[in-house]
């Protein structure tokens, strides 16, 4: 290769051609490593809301298509002042907490068992695969018969809906735990329980937590679904009522509450990740 380039250029103007050919090495690195950019998310939100506000004020967007954001805000304020917000939020949060806690706890347990025992894996992986794609809402009538029309069926729906994604995320995470570390634990004579508690569980924690993000988002979706099918109070009931009256301001107020709930849950998980996964740096 080098010989041909030398031969191409006549000896006497080699220096000159080297001069004219000199150019910096083009940069090809960088990217593929997202950095935290503070405030960008907020700017996107604000810009979209400002656009909607401007559109509805100028009449560019009709009142039938989209409520005016400031009106939604006013509705939210009224909701707060009348004390109705807490009346709707409190049962919703209880349902979310109880249902998700049940589903996640059982899901992590089953996921770990699937990850560790061949028979459990052989027996349950196909079952989980069969349960995963079932729209859990479709089973609500069944849950009502099994667990009663009251809170029981709502807890069960949310628990069941968070269970499957948690199981899948957990056993995948357990599969990814460094086997070398497990061998190390065995070579020091650690008990089975110690290996699970001190090696498998912390090693699987990153995967379990990212599964939790998905599970909890699903939990919020199912919460609303459950409440739409029969609840006096709850965000879902509130949205359903507003929808049936075509009261867009109240409908959107409910949607805003749900979005905020999602953002808060996600922020809480980020907090937990920061704490539990500090070792990853």
């Amino acid at each position, binding site marked *: 290769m080098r010989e041909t380039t030398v031969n191409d250029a006549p000896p006497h103007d080699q220096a000159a051609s080297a001069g004219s050919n000199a150019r910096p090495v083009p940069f090809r690195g960088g990217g593929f490593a997202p950095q935290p950019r503070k405030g960008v998310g907020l700017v996107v939100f604000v810009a979209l809301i400002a656009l909607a506000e401007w559109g509805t004020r100028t009449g560019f967007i009709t009142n039938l298509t989209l409520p005016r954001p400031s009106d939604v805000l006013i509705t939210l304020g009224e909701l707060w002042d009348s004390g109705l917000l807490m009346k709707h939020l409190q049962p919703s949060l209880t349902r979310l907490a109880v249902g998700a806690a049940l589903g996640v706890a059982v899901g992590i347990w089953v996921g770990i068992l699937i990850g560790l025992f061949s028979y459990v894996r052989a027996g349950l992986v196909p079952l989980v695969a069969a349960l995963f794609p079932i729209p859990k809402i479709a089973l609500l009538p069944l849950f009502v018969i099994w667990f009663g029309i009251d809170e029981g069926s709502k807890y069960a729906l949310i628990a069941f809906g968070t269970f499957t994604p948690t199981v899948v995320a957990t056993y995948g995470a357990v599969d990814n735990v460094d086997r*070398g*570390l497990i*061998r*190390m*634990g*065995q*070579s*020091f*004579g*650690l*008990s089975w329980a*110690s290996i699970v508690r*001190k*090696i498998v569980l*912390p*090693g699987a924690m990153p995967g379990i937590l990212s599964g939790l993000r998905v599970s909890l988002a699903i939990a919020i979706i199912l919460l609303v679904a459950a409440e739409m099918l029969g609840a006096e109070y709850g965000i879902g009931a509130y949205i359903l009522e507003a929808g049936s009256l075509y009261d867009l301001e109240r409908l959107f107020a409910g949607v805003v509450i749900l979005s905020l709930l999602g953002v808060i849950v996600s922020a809480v998980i980020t907090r937990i990740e920061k704490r539990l*996964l500090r*070792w*990853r*740096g």
Partner: protein
Amino acid sequence: MELRLDGVSHAYGGTQVLRDITLTVPEGKIVCIVGPSGCGKSTLLRMMGGLERPDEGTITQLGEPPEGCLNPLTYVFQDFALLPWRSVEGNISLALEDHDLSKARRAAIIEDVLARTSLSDFARALPRQLSGGMKQRVAIARALAVNPAVMLLDEPLSALDAQTRVLLMDDLVSLWTRAPFTAVYVTHNLAEAVRLGHRIVVLSRRPGAIREVVEIDSDLGARGEGDAKLEQVQTHLWHLMRDEARAADAELADA
């Protein structure tokens, strides 16, 4: 405590990996195992520590482990095998937590092994904050903490750069001269083998069988750079290994 292997053979699904290994690991000595890549050194070591069962043959412990020994057969792994979520002292503590020790006793052991491996200043550091050489010193400290009867080291220095390797080798020598321990030391590196081994076992290419056993009587502490006798042994080992590696290459070409 001694370790004795009697006619150990093993195959992984049709592929014979080890053939009729008979070997004694005497108390207070370091036995080095060298051999071409893939000849079954790691497999043999896993069997010695009870992490794997041989198809044929027996592995026996002779005599009692020393007083206060918590884990008679203790490994030091090539990739360190430290828990990334535990600090240096937490990693050492892991090996002690399943034993019935008082808190004070545990803390004393950790302090002692950290001092012996000059890691006292890094007790609270996380593995990712440590260099490779320091990580391996943590793993050695963890192994020392359980006061093993036999240490099983699988290429403990292979993941390290040449300078760190020399330093750690010196550390191992001084640890041994201060308190002689029994060890099986698997390595690719013949310089390590002649520096640390009282007995060097050369395995043939796969299926690994004992090709030759070389004894070196000189004191570990007295072995230094440019020792003519050691150089001679190393050259001899190198010839053996080269022949095996060549033959293994030729086999691959035929296949």
